């Protein structure tokens, strides 16, 4: 159980969550300033920011 836990938690899940969080961060350009969008590109601005933040938290 412990070896399985380390394999899962420290290796596999960490890498995959890193990929997910980094991909979303790259898509959002590091995070959106919701008040300063020149045109409405990211419609769900605050939700996307929250998603990115929790993704880095889970990582």
């Amino acid at each position: 159980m412990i070896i399985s836990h380390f394999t899962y938690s420290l290796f596999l899940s960490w890498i995959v969550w890193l990929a997910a969080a980094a991909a979303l961060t790259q898509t959002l350009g590091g995070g959106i300033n919701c008040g300063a969008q020149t045109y409405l590109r990211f419609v769900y601005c605050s939700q996307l920011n929250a998603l990115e933040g929790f993704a880095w938290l889970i990582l």
Partner: protein
Amino acid sequence: MTSKQTTILMGQPFSQLHCSKYFSTAGGSLYYILSSRLCCYVSPAFFFGCLDSVNRILGFRSQRTKYRTSIKFDEQTNAYVYHGFCCSNRPPRYVVSNFPSAALQLISNFRHVVAFGALLLSSLIELSISTWITAKYNANHNAPTSSAHVRVSYLFFMSIWTIVFGSVYLVGFLIAGTSIFASMAPHFFLRVLFYSTYHDNFSFHL
């Protein structure tokens, strides 16, 4: 290693869960409701400790119990024995053994539950947000780029992944936290599945 650890493990709890019919408190009835299922998952010493706290907070006091909960070291079996507070005139229910090594003690039950609880909570929030955004993108076709759609969907998948495997490891550590390999993991689900056919209202039979 014979040093006395106070960490609680599962000794022989499953076949001797008779305590529920001796409860007359709110926590007892709560336990009675939950006992048919959840006692397979939760360490009974931990469970009864929480139950004792609930009864103290609510001010209930069972007529048959004197709150003589104690964990004593049995020299003959070289293990810790949990003397439940429910039936003190009965032989002890729960054998609490010590950890096999100090290295395995690094992962204690409480810390593990807290850490995985935080992980599961964050994953649940992540799941809700990504589900909502994915549904909106699918319905309104207003994703800024296709990569945003794909990556939010990927986060949706990852949160489900983490919730599923995090729950498995949370329960698995509570049941078999010291077993080195996860060879017992499929056994848990099978046992939980088949336990319902064997139990009467008060006990489980191995």
